[in-house]
């Protein structure tokens, strides 16, 4: 598994792509924090400009995180299946190790990206709020596990691109809608998606952690049943 984690992680982090993502997230976080300082979304932080910048980072990842993670890594599993590279992996290690390795690589990449952005924002604002970062990492684990499950479920690259874009847009829309909606089915989504727990009820992030495990287990079962 270690080999797969290193290979996939290096593949993601290497090159200009990761630098651009860090710069984009950091820049937009600071800009968002400045322009949204008086927004009702930042009521708690509005008295403290430094905290607003950190909240801006979370806000950007909440809004665009799903789209970023899913579109960047939607083919983390199916790419190797389509290119027939997976056979060489599964003859050397267990199928759960392949899935777990891919998940850890995607998650680790986003953990590092968010950490770098967090350190940059903290350096600029001279504030360090660790719990924001931990919540963000749970949220990124949620997205990474969806990404791996999606990539195991949908073998065709073109379909997984479309699905990743749709899901990347739908997740934050439904997540934020559920926070303010009084319609029961939509309101129920607040307990399934990590947006409400991150914002209002951090204890509910345990549900998100459980969901990560469920998605990974589903990906493993799907992968185990595939003839490759």
């Amino acid at each position, binding site marked *: 598994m*270690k*080999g*797969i984690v*290193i*290979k996939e992680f290096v593949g993601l982090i290497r090159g200009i792509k990761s630098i651009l993502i860090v710069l984009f997230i950091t820049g937009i976080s600071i800009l968002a924090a400045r322009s949204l300082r008086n927004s009702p979304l930042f009521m708690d932080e509005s008295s403290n400009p430094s905290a607003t910048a950190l909240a801006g980072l979370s806000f950007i990842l909440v809004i665009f995180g799903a789209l970023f993670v899913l579109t960047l890594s939607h083919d983390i599993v199916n790419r190797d299946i389509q*290119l*027939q*590279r997976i*056979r*060489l*992996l*599964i*003859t*050397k*290690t*267990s199928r759960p190790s392949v899935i777990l390795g891919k998940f850890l690589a995607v998650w680790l990449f986003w953990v590092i990206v968010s950490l770098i952005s967090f350190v940059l924002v903290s350096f600029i604002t001279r504030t360090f709020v660790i719990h924001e970062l931990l919540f963000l990492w749970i949220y990124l684990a949620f997205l990474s596990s969806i990404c791996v499950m999606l990539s195991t479920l949908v073998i065709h690259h073109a379909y997984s691109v479309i699905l990743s874009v749709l899901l990347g847009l739908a997740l934050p829309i439904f997540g934020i809608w559920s926070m303010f909606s009084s319609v029961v089915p939509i309101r129920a989504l607040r307990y399934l998606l990590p947006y409400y727990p991150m914002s209002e009820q951090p204890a509910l992030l345990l549900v998100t952690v459980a969901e990560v495990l469920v998605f990974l287990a589903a990906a493993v079962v799907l992968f185990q*049943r595939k*003839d*490759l």
Partner: protein
Amino acid sequence: MKALIVNKLSKEYKTKKAVDDISFSLETGEVFALLGRNGAGKSTTINMLSGILTPTSGTIEILNTPYRHMNKIKQRIGVLPDNSNYYNEMTAIQHMKFFARVKGVSARKDSLVDLLESVGLGEDLGRKVGQFSLGMRKKLGIAQALIGSPELIFLDEPTSTLDVESALQIRQLISTLASQGITIFMTSHNLEEIERICDRVAILNHGKIEKMGTLEQLREAHTRSINITIKYQASDQSQESLWLDRLQQMAGAVQCKPPYVEIELDEEEVIPEIVQAAVECKIRIYSIERERVSLENIFLDEKLA
């Protein structure tokens, strides 16, 4: 000791039974080949044995370990699957290190370099695989199958796409591995290659094993008559006619094309009598060649059947 035991193994797809109830076993250190035309079920069989495909039914025991513990077995086997691809942006040595890490075995550079050298990629260690020819990719595939000193190696068409020299090198490598006690299970279309390096052969047709055994056993089962060709020289024509008349009495069929005579015999005990008759008729014999049934003959007969 058995390295591999396969019992009533089947693989069924929606529209087709690719492998139908096959059973066989391999002794440790044996080189075993699975033969068959395209679509006979060779690759499906090797893919099931190596964990790529899940069998529909049947049992497999690899290196005294049941198939359900396949994950434990993976460190002890090596596999060259039929259609496999590589990471074009990685070099040959980077691939070897990566596969060694994935397999959870030593990734020492010198031993991995040795493996690449053994398949003839010693001068291409640092080249990106994207620049490799099909033959070089095949060699890399064989090298990666040897990572971690496997006890049993599955090779699907190991010499296809290789040039004559490289194919010879791989055949020698397979023979060397077998002499070290490593069991080899392979498929090939090259019948001459199989004749040279394999101890036993199974012929697969429509997912079923039609014939199985050592090459000698297959030849014996296939042989209906003995064909010999004698190169001779007669001192005079009357003696030659006399000898040929005696041959007609001894053999099933005689065809004379001087200085050769082709004779079909029912049993090999007649051969000394033919020589004796030649001596008595003052016929000088330069050579006696017995036609051996080739694996190709056996295979083609199975296909026609």
